[in-house]
């Protein structure tokens, strides 16, 4: 069975009306917290400008900064690996696991490892891996994917988590208390941390100046893993580089405020050198990013710092859920990143938007997300990745709209049909009518009315 399109999956999501409203409101609540945090800083727009400009500068010198980072990191005792695609990334990690004969692996949140399908790859190779972010552990136990890059289990209610934990962690049946459930997860994952031999983390920022990386969490799971295990592997896309440590001042001020409305994440850990007798690896992954860098219209998408603000504000994301996007990174930013990775498989995503522009307005690094969504639609149409029904509809519209006489005739026919033969359009074959009432037919068109009234 092929993956359902965003529209098909969203249709299934909204069948549960109550849950759809709850999902919508919960994410809007996060968006409002973001607003409050942003409005608390008079320099917010200045910060966004700085962040955007630092990223512009970095992307325009990216090869040099990558080499500078590598040089410094190696001098610090970090081992650097380069992976051109997801398969190479997974293979490098598997190689390190085999080399050390490692069995016990913990992983904190890394959207890159989700993008690369690391878990599935390791399961298939007979290697178990434990996600340690609470939300990620919940979805892992349920054999689901995260539905949001910052709030992985936002599609679930406390009853769902309670049932999952009852099955897997033997918690009390029917105890839905988040405090109780979190404590159960804490105890369960403590054991995994203590026993772990390898910790995999993501990277929020890689600093060219120092060769160090910064990882941000609220739970402390990245640190529990990385400091307990003998080997630490950190996975980063090539776009995670920033030039100077002082730039963290700009990005850390924006990241958590944009993501959850917190003034900063709880743990902002700066990893520079491995401990004596320990190993630290950084895998630098391309997986299509250098290609995106070459697409002038879409290059800015690489400035993303994965805060998720565009998800929380998006009227389509809030009412269709992350799984409808069938990719590791959902939401508006995912919809401009994923067509670059696989244009055919993700051709539906740039259409999962109203182009309202709210995503661009909340983006802390000022990516013109809604513009890029619109530009992707044009690229996809040119490359032949738009469905026949949509293509035909648009062709008919283009034909009508460029021929005023035929357009006026069609208008008259339409008004006649709506008034005298409504069953012709009010039926199941008309996709527009499935979820909408057809409009009342006016007696005359605006044009006719205007011509008549102007003479008066």
């Amino acid at each position, binding site marked *: 069975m092929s993956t359902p399109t965003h529209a098909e999956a969203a249709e299934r999501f909204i069948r549960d009306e109550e849950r759809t409203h709850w999902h919508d409101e919960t994410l809007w609540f996060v968006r409002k917290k973001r607003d409050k945090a942003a409005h608390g800083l008079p320099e917010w727009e200045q910060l966004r400008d700085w962040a955007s400009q630092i990223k512009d500068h970095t992307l325009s010198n990216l090869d040099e900064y990558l080499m500078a980072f590598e040089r410094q990191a190696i001098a610090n005792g970090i081992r650097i690996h380069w992976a051109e695609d997801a398969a190479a990334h997974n293979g490098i990690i598997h190689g390190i696991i085999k080399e050390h004969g490692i069995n016990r692996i913990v992983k904190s949140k890394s959207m890159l490892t989700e993008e690369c399908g690391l878990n599935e790859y390791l399961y298939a190779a007979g290697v178990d891996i434990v996600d340690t972010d609470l939300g990620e552990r919940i979805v892992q136990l349920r054999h689901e994917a995260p539905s949001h890059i910052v709030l992985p289990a936002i599609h679930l209610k406390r009853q769902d988590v309670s049932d999952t934990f009852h099955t897997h962690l033997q918690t009390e049946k029917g105890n839905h208390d988040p405090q109780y459930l979190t404590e159960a997860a804490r105890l369960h994952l*403590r054991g995994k941390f203590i026993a772990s031999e390898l910790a995999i983390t993501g990277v929020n920022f890689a600093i060219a100046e120092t060769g160090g990386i910064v990882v941000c969490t609220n739970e402390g799971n990245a640190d*529990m893993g990385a400091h307990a295990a003998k080997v630490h592997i950190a996975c980063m896309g090539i776009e995670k580089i920033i030039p100077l440590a002082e730039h*963290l001042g700009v990005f850390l001020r924006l990241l958590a405020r944009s993501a959850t409305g917190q003034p900063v994440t709880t*743990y902002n850990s700066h990893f520079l050198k491995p401990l004596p007798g320990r190993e630290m690896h950084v895998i630098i992954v391309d997986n299509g990013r250098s290609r995106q860098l070459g697409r002038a219209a879409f290059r800015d998408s690489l400035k993303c710092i994965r805060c998720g603000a565009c998800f929380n504000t998006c009227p389509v994301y809030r009412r269709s859920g992350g799984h409808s996007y069938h990719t590791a990174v959902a939401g508006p930013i995912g919809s401009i990143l994923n067509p670059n990775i696989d244009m055919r498989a993700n051709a539906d995503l740039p259409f999962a938007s109203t182009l309202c522009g709210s995503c661009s307005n909340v983006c802390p690094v000022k990516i013109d997300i809604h513009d890029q969504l619109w530009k992707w639609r044009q690229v996809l149409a040119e490359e032949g990745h738009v469905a026949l029904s949509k293509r035909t509809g648009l062709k008919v519209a283009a034909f009508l709209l460029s021929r005023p006489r035929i357009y006026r005739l069609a208008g008259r026919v339409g008004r006649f049909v709506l008034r005298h033969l409504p069953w012709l359009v009010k039926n199941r074959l008309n996709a527009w009518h499935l979820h909408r009432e057809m409009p009342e037919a006016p007696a005359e068109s605006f044009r006719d009315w205007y011509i008549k009234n102007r003479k008066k």
Partner: protein
Amino acid sequence: MNARERILQAVGANKPSSRPLPVPDKELVIRYEDPLSTFRATLDSIGGASVIIDDLELLKKEIQTHRAKGSFVINRIAAVGQVDADIAGLTAEALESLDVAYIEGKIAVAENGAIWIPESSLGNRLVPFICTQLVVLIDRKDIVPTLHHAYALVDTAAEGFGMFLAGPSKTADIEQSLVIGAHGAKGLMVYIL
């Protein structure tokens, strides 16, 4: 060509023409009339607590009391009692039952309640995460308005590890309900001298 060379070549070929690097100006950012009270209010809002102290007697007594009760305590502050110096080799298993850790913070940030803690303050990188209660001592003269000011004072490359810590461990992954104490310390007390 290997993967590294191919990636660097593709990036070099596809990058846009050079754009200028801005220099963030600290004069353009928020100022607080009373950074100490802002720091305390912010820390409170993120689940931490603070107490202003005039000397270290309270801390000394607290550590003695914990130890007398048989709690597993690690103290890294020389001024308040004997320092647990040789803890770098302790494993996660050995530290699992750590009840309270006392450490020194270097720079505190008013806008977000964060405190810079370098590796040398910890003695063992696991300490501030694996303990149940974390106590941090800071000097009130080390409170700065924003992260920009903090990064101007902190050399993040001076040691192998360091962090900005803001409050106790927390999560809201279950229905956006805030729960303090996810994987790291369940409580953070900051003593401000």
